[in-house]
């Protein structure tokens, strides 16, 4: 089931680098908000244990695509998704898929840090608690501390786990959100411009973290920063006006884009 289904007709040419084990496979994905079409026939494979960057100008549909993966678009009443989007070969839009379980497997980090207005500990413990991942208090504590350590936040907050998560700085809040996301051991972490509200130092920390996390997780990141995409991602996909223009190995996209629009965008001609 892990074999990608190829649709050569829609690809302008065979992908430069074949992906042996794509984690996420999107085929002819269309998204409509009411009458407006936000995504048109998107075909994209996302590899396992790598960082895939979605780039493109504002309103091009990258966030929409990201939110299709864990079905966060369900919360928008007018949104409608067609096509096939499979994780490990199972269509996420299959009526038999439980959306809550799906979201437990596909964690998400949002553009603006949004910790719960609760203690740091409770922020991380919430996910494991509602999914019953810990059998007792000690286990829960273990999960929380491990997650904080993996998110690189533990040393900064170990003495104030009972303080409110909202009292942390922006960068710390965002790492807390990452810790919260990895606490439920998801397969995939979606990041929607996670550094747009952060200063360069905090951004550097998050980027470093992403590099570490990709050994265990499949990461999909939406970013407006070309440099960030170049730094953290192994593969990149360029969206424009709801169309997936080009995708491939990050180095190729940035050094030898096949499409004129991609080149214009990454060289700063528009966007």
């Amino acid at each position, binding site marked *: 089931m892990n074999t990608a289904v190829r649709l050569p007709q829609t690809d302008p040419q065979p992908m430069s680098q074949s992906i042996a084990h794509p984690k996420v496979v999107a085929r002819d994905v269309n998204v409509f908000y009411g009458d407006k079409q936000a995504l048109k026939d998107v075909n994209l494979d996302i590899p396992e244990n790598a960082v895939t960057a979605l780039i493109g100008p504002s309103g091009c549909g990258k966030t929409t695509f990201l939110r299709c993966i*864990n079905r*966060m678009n369900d*919360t928008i*009443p007018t949104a409608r998704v067609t096509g096939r989007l499979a994780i490990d070969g199972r269509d996420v839009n299959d009526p038999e898929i439980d959306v*809550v*379980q*799906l*979201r*437990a*497997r596909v*964690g*998400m*980090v*949002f553009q*603006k840090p*949004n*910790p*719960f*207005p609760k203690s740091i500990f409770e922020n991380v413990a*919430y*996910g494991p608690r*509602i*999914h019953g991942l810990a059998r007792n208090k000690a286990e829960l504590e273990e999960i929380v501390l491990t997650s904080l350590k993996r998110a690189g936040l533990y040393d900064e907050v170990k003495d104030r786990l009972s303080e409110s998560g*909202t009292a942390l700085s922006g960068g710390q809040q965002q790492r807390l*959100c990452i810790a*919260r*996301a990895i*606490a*439920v051991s998801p397969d995939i972490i979606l990041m929607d411009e996670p550094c747009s509200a952060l200063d360069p130092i905090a951004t550097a920390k998050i980027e470093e973290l992403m590099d570490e996390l990709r050994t265990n997780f499949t990461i999909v990141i939406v970013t407006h920063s070309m440099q960030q995409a170049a730094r953290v991602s192994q593969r990149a996909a360029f969206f424009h006006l709801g169309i997936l223009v080009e995708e491939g190995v990050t180095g190729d996209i940035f050094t030898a884009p096949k499409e004129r629009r991609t080149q214009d965008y990454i060289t700063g001609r528009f966007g």
Partner: protein
Amino acid sequence: MTDLAIPGLRRLDFTTEKARARVRSRYRAEVRFKAYGLIAIGLTTLFILLVLADIIVRGTPAFFQYRLVLDVNVEQSEIDPQGTHDPAAIRAGDYSALVRNALRKIFPDVTDRAGRRLLDGIVSSGAADQLREMVVADPSLIGRTIKAPLLLSDDADLYFKGLGTSISRTAGRGIASPSGTTGDITILSSANDFSSDLVTIKRSLAKRARDLRAYAASLRRSAREVEAQGDDAQRLLAAAQAAGDAARVQSYTSQFTSYRAEAATLTRQAAEAEAEAADLQKRFENPSAEEAIGGNVPSVLVSIDGGMVKVTRLGNSQVSGRVLLPLTSSADAAPGTWSIVTFATPEDNRRVSDREVAWLEYLREHGLVERSFNWIFFTSGDSREPELAGIRGALVGSALTLLVTLFVCLPLGVAAAIYLEEFAPRNRFTEIIEVNINNLAAVPSIVFGLLGLAIFLNFLGLPRSAPLVGGLVLALLVLPTIIIASRAALKAVPPSIKEAALGVGASHQQAVFHHVLPLAMPGVMTGTIIGMSHALGETAPLLMIGMVAFIVEPAASITDAATVLPVQIYLWSDLPEIAFQAKTAAAIMVLLVFLFIMNGTAIFLRRRFERRW
């Protein structure tokens, strides 16, 4: 592209006189608007302060009461003749006799029936009940003489609160010699001690004479007018007779006679008034003649030899009158040891007679009157006797009613708000429901009363006047408020919190109940408390379901008949007794205090739990 000015358009002109005038008028408009705002705020503050000050000034006296502290002999013969010490027998004793005896011991000279009834009346009928409670609680008091506080009647209480009359005293300058110690006596003074009071009365005679003469003059004027009309009628009559018109002759004849009769009556009344005025004038012009003192002029009394004499006839150096408090002796009183006492309010305009005032003043002078906090106001139910009426029944009724309201409308309101805000599909049906909830918040409250009457009382057959029904009606009344406030609070929670919860795999319901609702709770509580204080002050719908009854016993359960605070205020405001005016204002103060506390709590919750994201 450096030239930003668009060709053909005028540039902003800020140097010419016209431009400066424009700026000035803008400043003027701003100053004017600020002045309007200040005036509006000043006026509203003034009105609010006026209302509050008025209520506080009126209501404060009701929180205090005056009591007599008398030595009461708890005689076994009146309470427990058989000496059984049986609580039921002790309870059945005649305690009002004890109270009466204690009072009569102080005023042994009061032997006439009317006087005794008057004396008994200065103590409240509740005094005996208080004494009963004391003795039942401690039967060892039987047979002993105890100092017992006795509640005064409302008129006596009001007298001590300063609503009786202002009293002025003038020390006597001459030697006063009374002719006796009881009954009707005459007091002679060696100086013209009473002349100033006499002058006051004479002066009032002169004023009365002036008024009468003016009245007589106006009567005479009308009489002349009526006569003139009569003359007209007479002329017309003569003309009609000349014309031989029988019908007109008859009509004018009757007119003429009635005018004449009216003129005669007016003239007679004028003459009577003039005669009275002349009589008064004569009395005024004879300064030494004695004058009688009636009930329509300030009362004059003489305090002498430990007694009190009410003056009925007043001369320059002698008065005669009736003894109200017996004199200890008929010895001559030296100058300065006796005094003339004037009660400024005429007896006819007072609730307490001169005799009662004399008694009350005597009791006060002997330290038998004490002022204490009026606990009865908080511990007893409604009563027809103002001094025994309290708000406990209304408070209990309000509390029970609000409890029912809270238990019904908080879960219903919050559940409805959560469903509508978070779960309901957006369609025509939910839109209609939303519009109607908003409309219901503006429906007059009396309509909810009618609804309660029709559904809860007539259809479901629930008990009348009960907090259960009142609470249900008020719950319906405040439901829209709570739903609207709760929805606003839920909407104010940033969606990022809900997304975060959904992002870690919480279900919609978990996201709402674990994260959104706790954050919205301060808003929900604020809305609920505002709704509750709205319900606390509501009167009209409760009138419709019969909570307007006179209920003495505080309700013990939500199905007992009860009344609530605002209805109690409404009931008391309607009563004729002056003492109830203060009770009304005092009850309003209590209601306002509760409203302030509730709204203060709402503000506190809002401040305390307000979060910034």
